[in-house]
C-alpha cells in the first residue's frame, strides 16, 4: 500500500450534527435519484469539513514554519 498524504481528522466537538439520527426512525425504501441526495449532504456538511481541513492545514503550516525557523537558526543541526 502506498503512503497516503492526507493527515488525520478529529472533530469530536461537532458530534451534535449527528444527534437527529438517534431520535428518528429507520427507513427502507428504494430511491429514485440517490445522486441528488448525495450532492445535498456534501453541501450540508461541507462547511464543517472545510473548517476542519482549514484548521489542519493552518496547524501544519505553523508547525512547519517553526521547524523551518529552527533549521535556519541551526543550519548544521
Amino acid at each position, binding site marked *: 500500500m502506498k503512503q497516503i498524504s492526507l493527515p488525520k481528522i478529529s472533530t469530536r466537538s461537532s*458530534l451534535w450534527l449527528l444527534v437527529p439520527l438517534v431520535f428518528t426512525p429507520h*427507513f427502507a425504501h428504494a430511491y429514485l435519484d440517490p445522486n*441528488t441526495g448525495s450532492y445535498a449532504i*456534501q453541501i450540508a*456538511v461541507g462547511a464543517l469539513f472545510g473548517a476542519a481541513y482549514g484548521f489542519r492545514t493552518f496547524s501544519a503550516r505553523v508547525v512547519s514554519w517553526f521547524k523551518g525557523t529552527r533549521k535556519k537558526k541551526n543550519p548544521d543541526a
Partner: protein
Amino acid sequence: MPERPVLPHPASFRDPSGYIFTQQGSIFRAVSKSYQSEYDLLMSSNLYVHLIEQNVLIPHQEVSTPTVRDAYKVLKPEMVQFISYPYEWSFSQLKDAALTTLEIQTQALNHGMSLKDASAYNIQFHNGTPTLIDTLSFESYKEGQPWVAYRQFCQHFLAPLALMAHVDLRLGTLSAKYIDGVPLDLAVSLLPGKTKFSLGLGTHIHLHARSQHKYADTSLKSTPKGQLHKNQLNGLLLSLRSSISALTLPKQKTEWGNYYDNTNYTDNSRTIKEKTVREWITAQKPKTVWDAGANDGTFSRLASAQGIFTVASDIDPLAVERSYQHNKQSGERLLLPLIIDLTNPSPAIGWRNTERDSFLKRGQHDLTLALALIHHLAIANNLPLEHIADFFHSQTKNLIIEFVPKEDSNTQRLLSAREDIFPNYTVEGFEKAFSTHFTTKKRLKIKDSSRILYLLESKP
C-alpha cells in the same frame, strides 16, 4: 492496417469517454473525441506522471494501431495479471483499494482534475498493490461542484467496510449482489446503532442515506442549492480517509484462520511435502499457478517465490486476510489472495451477466495446487470424485493434488458426525476417477503420513 470496427468489451458501455476492446490477445482503450480535452489535461497537467510514479495508476502507451474509427487516441495499458472483484477481496484489500482511490482523488484535485467514478471495479491489484485501471476516470475540476463520485465511493467502499468491521466479515460478499455498491439504506439497517455517533459513519452513511431518501421524494420541488468549495471538498476527502482508516478488522475466529498451527504433519513430513511441491512446480515451468485451497498462502508462495504469478484462493476471509498481510510485509508482487468458495465460486454478474465474469471464466491456469482440499470437497460437500476430477480438468493443464484418506484424523473429523456414504473415497477410487481426465506423472506417499501427493497432467 485497414480500418475495421472493433467490439467494445461487454462491461465497457457506461462511460461515453471511451471503451475497452481486445485485439489479438491485447487489451486496448479507445479514447472518444468528446473526451479529448480531459485526456489532454490528464497528460499535460502532470497528473498522469505523478500517479504513475506513485504506482496508483496503470501505465499506458499511446498506439497508432489498431485503427479505431471515431477515437481521439488508442491506448495500450499494461496488462493486469488477473482481474479480481471487490467481493473477492479481504478486508484489508478493500480498505487499501479505498485509501488508494482517495489518494488519487486528492492528487487529481491538486492538478485541477477530479475523479468522476469511484467504482471499486476500477481498482485492480497490479504487481501486488491496488491500482486504478480506468485512465478515463478523470474530468476537469469545476470550482464549487460537489464530488460526483461521492455516492459511489460510499457504496463501493465505505459501506461494505463498515459492515465487515461492525457486523460480520462475511458481509464483504454483499457487493456481489449489488453491482453499484451496497445501498446506503441497507447499510443503515444492518449497522449497529452506535455507528450513528461516529462522525464519519454517522455523516457518510447514516446522514447520507437520509439525504438520499429525502431527495428521492418525487413530490419534493426543491433541489439542493449551494456550492462545495475546494477546501470543503478536501475536508470531505480527509473525513472519508479518517473514517476508512478507523475501521479495523473485527476480532473473529474463523474455521481455518489458524490452520497451519493444527495440521496432521510432523516437521519431517511437512518438509518433504514442501520440497516435493516446490520441485514439481519448478519442473512444470508454469506461467500461472492457481492454489485452489490456499489458506494463508503458505504453499502458494512456493510458486510465487519462483517468479510465477499465483492466485491463492480460499473460502476463509480471515485466512485470505492473513495472506494479504503477509504480502504487504514481504513486498510480495506475484501472489494474489482471493476469497473464493469453490463449491459456489463468484458468478457472472451485471447487465446480461456479462459485465463481471465468473471466477472460473477468468482463469485458465498452467498449474493448479489442490493440497489438503479434496476431503473437504468430497466428504464435507458430497461432491463425487468424478465431478471434482472433471472440474479441475476444465480449469488447468497440470494438477498437483493431495489425497487425504479416510484414516487421516482430519477426514475422520469430517465423518464423525455423519454417516459414511462415501464407499468410493479410497486411494483406488480416487485414482480411477482422476484417470479419466488426467495422466499420472508422479506419485509420492508422504513419509510419516497417510497422505499421497500426485502430479497429474490433463488429457486432451
